[in-house]
């Protein structure tokens, strides 16, 4: 089995224009991944599958990950002129690292019996530019998994033959696996409410009381 660096080098020699990066995985599992620019995704995938040495003919797992906007604060020292005097003032500067959606593929080779090679693509942002190329033409196993990513994360796969919701009903509008999804408030009263459920149950109770009182007043 080639290491991730060697695979990267192999891609670079075969497809010199492709924008591929290696992302180290700090965990002990040592499963490093290749981040591919969406426009090169399909070409790189075909290379990985059809290269005789790599022969990654089996795409085991395809999934999505939602990375929220990251807010990092940084203290910056700046000299400013205040009342004609030069002073060093500490300021906190907020950086917003825009979030993105990511699709992750775990590739194995059934012929060579090696793997995994991890292949990722990232969207430009989380709201309107959420298109990624579909890997279904290359690996058929992505068909349902990409539909699931579309359903739960909202990544739109270009080139997917049948991109519909798969788990939720068609009228559903949200993407529930996103980190900022708010689920419907259907906790009413519960036999043994606690934590968040208790809070919600009490809110429902309060609403109910108000409605009752209003009804009494009108009677």
């Amino acid at each position, binding site marked *: 089995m080639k290491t991730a660096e060697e695979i990267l080098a192999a891609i670079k020699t075969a497809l010199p224009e492709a924008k591929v990066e290696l992302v180290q995985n700090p965990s002990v599992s040592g499963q490093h991944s290749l981040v591919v620019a969406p426009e090169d995704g399909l070409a790189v995938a075909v290379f990985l599958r059809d290269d005789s040495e790599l022969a990654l003919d089996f795409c085991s797992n395809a999934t999505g990950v939602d990375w929220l906007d990251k807010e990092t604060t940084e203290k910056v020292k700046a000299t400013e002129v205040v009342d004609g005097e030069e002073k060093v003032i500490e300021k906190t500067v907020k950086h917003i690292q825009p979030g993105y959606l990511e699709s992750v593929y775990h590739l194995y080779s059934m012929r060579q019996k090696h793997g995994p090679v991890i292949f990722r693509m990232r969207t430009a942002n989380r709201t309107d530019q959420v298109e990624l190329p579909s890997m279904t033409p290359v690996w058929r196993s992505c068909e349902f998994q990409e539909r699931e990513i579309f359903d739960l994360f909202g990544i739109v796969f270009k080139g997917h033959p049948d991109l519909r919701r798969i788990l*939720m009903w068609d*009228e559903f*509008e949200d993407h529930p696996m996103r980190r900022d999804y708010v*689920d*419907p408030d259907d*906790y*009413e*009263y519960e036999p043994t409410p606690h934590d968040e459920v208790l809070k919600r149950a009490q809110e429902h109770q*309060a609403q109910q*009381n108000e409605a009752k009182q209003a009804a009494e007043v009108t009677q």
Partner: protein
Amino acid sequence: MAVEPDLKIELGKQGVFVTTLNELYNWGRRNSVWPMQFGLACCAIEMIATTMARYDLARFGAEVFRPSPRQADLMIISGTVTKKMAPQVVRLYNQMAEPRYVIAMGACAISGGPFKQGYNVLKGIDRYIPVDVHIPGCPPRPEALIHAFMTLQKRIEEQPLTGENRPRHLDADAQGLFPVPEPGAHDLVPPVNRLVWPLPAPKPDATEKQG
């Protein structure tokens, strides 16, 4: 008009068998409950296990699992009812002929169980249809299902044929069709059927605390 039990035994010794129409009717119904072959999730496997040789639900006259709701009297809701499945469950219940009974099997069918926090999980099927017997457990053991079955039989036996508490099928005004929820943009519409799932009367102290 029930016959005194002592008198009944005494008459029985003399070779005279007395019963009431009510008893006879319920005796027949009780011992031939046909469940619907309807499995939802993990609990369904325990339901299948109950019908198999070791636990043998046939001893209670309920081995005839019917695939069609039209031929069944009992719906065993065995497993998690998701919001996607709930309309179908209600529709199947509507298609069953009276008299019909429902056993909610497992924590999921009762309240959502371990999956209660899920966005697609209905927090208890009794939000849409009336349930006769609840079985706790995750999954309930086959013995628990048998116990629920016996509880249901007892309930059937005690049903009067006339009067206030007569069963729905003998009450011409009783509600037969239950509204089927529609899938909405974020949740089912309506989220509950208020006729079967009324809000509890507000507790005075609870309101004070919130105050």
